[in-house]
């Protein structure tokens, strides 16, 4: 669906493959053959969005319905944006090439805070007013979903509605209800009132935030029918939930270019910093029969040569080794290899990894998150020092040549000693391996900064102040510099700071987002595009002190901007976990 203007545009951009669609398994329906047209918008590049399984699941579940169609659009890269603006060509959906304005619904997938400026930019490129109140009956309804919709307040004035929780079942039903209401001639406002009583639907304009002495103090409902609290949707039974066996196969290389079967959803580990562990509760399993059937279909319909058994913590699937055996049998002779991401750091995981890689032994990846046993107890990552040594020595014995280890700094109760322990751990592991006669084990160490997230037990905790984060990073840089056998990388402190500002932000941040976007902020999650000085300008212009958001510690009694959005975990349970974290005794863990 490429007209001549678009052709000229595409000739001038770096990767036209991002914008042409038409991939294998993409679904092109006639707009006048369906009752409602939606475009699924991902506020990041095609390569990133097409690696997101949620996008593929929704694409499948909505297109399955004969009355509905769903197309895709991704954030245009800087060169494409320039061309679109220059030519006055509106942002368009990949399948039909139609501008977003030609759709009834634009639904944004909100995966991370640092994509928010792209949301505004995409609306603007489509010629759609960014504020909900500026839009009329002839504009599409702008809806949002995904993890960030559990605290969408910084985006609230830009959206008409958020759909909380898992959407593969809820979204088609919501769209069907919209069809009926439109047939009944409801206005936009009436429609939103009507929809607001559905489970998982949050219409932010019906809730007016209140502030007292500069702090958020609760909401006042503007419409009687709007519920006091919104309960998320979730899929009760994965086996009967829609799952794509014929996902779109991109032509251009994407971040995760392989077939994916989700083996379970949710995570039983409950690490206290981890939002995903809480918002995806309860843990639900896909049966091994269903997994194998899905895998077989996926390979037959996509032609991928790799299948990933995905989940938040894949080695926790009961009987996963048996599952792998059966999968191997089912796919024998097809030249397909299996991969198991997100392994827990223990000997069992090493056995599994060995089984999967059968000789291709390069680097094993684990996330111990903290290097001292005490701190791991605080954050709820229950792996002992002994287990770590056991697992890693077993891996070395099995022939693995290196490890990639993820750690976090700035965790609650953390001291310099905990940070230095990361270096110590590497050093001692190396010593141990040397005694085993393995001298060339590689270490790749990646350090993130703790970001307090809504709906996790650490939601009340402050982020470590930026200067302290930088100081602790320097500490590590100094030490690792002398250890050339460690490949060391860390997350930019300013980026994590901004993430923390928005993760617990309230509605007052909306004008800030608009300002930052106007100042040119885009793709803030990409270090080559991120400009903190632009953000600083925006903060100054609006008189907002970002530290009030990122570095603030809340008390249990403080009203939180996301209190009315329920993810299924009671606040009391979070309080209990939070208390437990701080009851861990201060002394060092046993093996130090």
């Amino acid at each position, binding site marked *: 669906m490429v007209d001549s203007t678009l052709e000229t545009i595409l000739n001038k951009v770096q990767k036209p493959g991002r914008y042409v669609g*038409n*991939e*294998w398994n993409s679904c092109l329906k006639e707009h006048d053959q369906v009752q409602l047209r939606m475009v699924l918008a991902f506020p990041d590049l095609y390569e990133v969005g097409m690696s997101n399984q949620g996008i593929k699941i929704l694409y499948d579940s909505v297109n399955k319905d004969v009355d509905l169609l769903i197309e895709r659009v991704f954030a245009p890269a800087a060169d494409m944006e320039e061309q679109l603006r220059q030519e006055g060509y509106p942002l368009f959906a990949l399948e039909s090439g139609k501008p977003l304005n030609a759709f009834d619904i634009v639904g944004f997938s909100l995966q991370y805070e640092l994509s928010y400026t792209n949301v505004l930019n995409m609306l603007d490129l489509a010629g759609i007013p960014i504020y909900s109140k500026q839009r009329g009956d002839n504009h599409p309804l702008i809806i949002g979903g995904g993890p960030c919709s559990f605290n969408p307040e910084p985006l609230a004035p830009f959206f008409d509605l958020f759909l909380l929780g898992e959407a593969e079942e809820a979204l088609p039903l919501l769209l069907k209800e919209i069809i009926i209401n439109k047939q009944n001639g409801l206005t936009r406002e009436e429609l939103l009132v009507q929809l607001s009583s559905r489970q998982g639907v949050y219409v932010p304009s019906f809730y007016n935030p209140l502030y007292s002495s500069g702090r958020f103090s609760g909401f006042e409902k503007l419409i009687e029918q709007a519920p006091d609290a919104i309960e998320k949707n979730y899929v009760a039974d994965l086996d009967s939930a829609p799952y794509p066996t014929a996902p779109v*196969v991109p*032509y251009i290389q994407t971040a995760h270019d392989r077939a994916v079967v989700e083996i379970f959803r949710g995570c039983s580990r409950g690490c206290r910093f981890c939002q995903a562990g809480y918002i995806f509760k309860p843990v639900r399993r896909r049966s091994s029969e269903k997994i194998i059937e899905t895998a077989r279909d996926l*390979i*037959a*319909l*996509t*032609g*991928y*040569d790799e299948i990933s058994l995905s989940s938040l913590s894949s080695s926790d699937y009961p009987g996963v080794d048996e599952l792998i055996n059966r999968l191997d049998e089912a796919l024998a*002779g*097809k*030249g397909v*290899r299996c991969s198991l991401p997100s392994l827990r750091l223990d000997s069992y995981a090493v056995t599994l990894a060995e089984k999967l*890689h*059968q*000789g*291709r032994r390069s680097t094993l990846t684990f996330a111990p998150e903290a290097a001292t046993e005490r701190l791991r107890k605080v954050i709820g990552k229950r792996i002992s020092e002994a287990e770590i040594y056991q697992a890693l020595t077993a891996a070395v014995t099995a022939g693995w040549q290196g490890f990639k280890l993820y750690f976090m700094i700035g965790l609650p109760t953390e001291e310099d000693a905990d940070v230095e322990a990361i270096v110590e751990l590497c050093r001692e592991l190396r010593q141990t391996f040397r005694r085993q006669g393995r001298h060339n084990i590689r270490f790749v160490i990646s350090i993130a900064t703790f970001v307090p997230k809504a709906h996790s037990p650490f939601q009340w905790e402050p982020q470590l102040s930026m200067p302290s984060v930088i100081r602790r990073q320097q500490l590590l840089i100094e030490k690792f510099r002398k250890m050339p056998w460690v490949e060391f990388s860390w997350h930019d402190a300013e980026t994590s700071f901004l993430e923390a500002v928005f993760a617990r932000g309230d509605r007052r941040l909306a004008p800030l987002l608009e300002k930052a976007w106007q100042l040119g902020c885009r793709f803030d999650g990409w270090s080559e595009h991120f400009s903190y000085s632009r953000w600083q300008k925006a903060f100054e212009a609006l008189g907002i002190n970002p530290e009030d958001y990122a570095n603030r510690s809340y008390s249990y009694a403080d009203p939180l901007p996301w209190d009315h959005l329920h993810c299924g975990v009671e606040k009391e349970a979070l309080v209990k976990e939070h208390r437990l974290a701080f009851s861990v005794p201060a002394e060092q863990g046993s093996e130090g």
Partner: protein
Amino acid sequence: MRLLQRALRRSTLPLAYSQGYNPRLRLNLALPLPLGVTANREYGELYLSEKIDPAQLISSLSAQLPAGLELLGVFEVSAESSSLAALVAAACYRAKLVDAKEKSLAVVQIERAVSKLMAAEELLMPRSGKKKKQISDINIRPYIFELRLDSGLRAVPEVVMLLKAGSDGGVSPFYLLQLLDACEPDCGSEARQWSVERESLYLISNGALIPLTEGA
């Protein structure tokens, strides 16, 4: 290539895989396209684990190919015959000048450069040897079987090149275009932009080049 591999995997053909931990489809292209060159057809060979009717292969695979990609023909060869890649000896490219501003002038300049190159006895191309530090020059003049301006009635200058290619050495069409441009250093300040298409492949047979065609 990835696209083709995936299409093959989707088909129900009895594919053969390489041995080892990381089995790969046994699919080889006669001569991979240099980066930046387009072609309207490609030749390759595929190994199967059992004998099937070529017509069946065409129908199974065609069903899995995206629009714009067509399977033109399938021929069975014995597993003992030498690989296509080993047989390929030369490739013919057609280069078109993109965004030519003064077309007539360019034609004259290119014509002059072409005859200059063809008249030369030796054209040295620096080549980095196996060990990085050694750099030896090789004479690529014998690699040029044909080089001519083929603008004819067409307004845009086009250069046709028949160049040695394949497993025992060859020269990139872009290198030749660079040489062409370098012949006339003072014409046109900007480097010329060419779009290059590969037209056909050649085999050597009894000392003569014969075009690789379907069925050859």
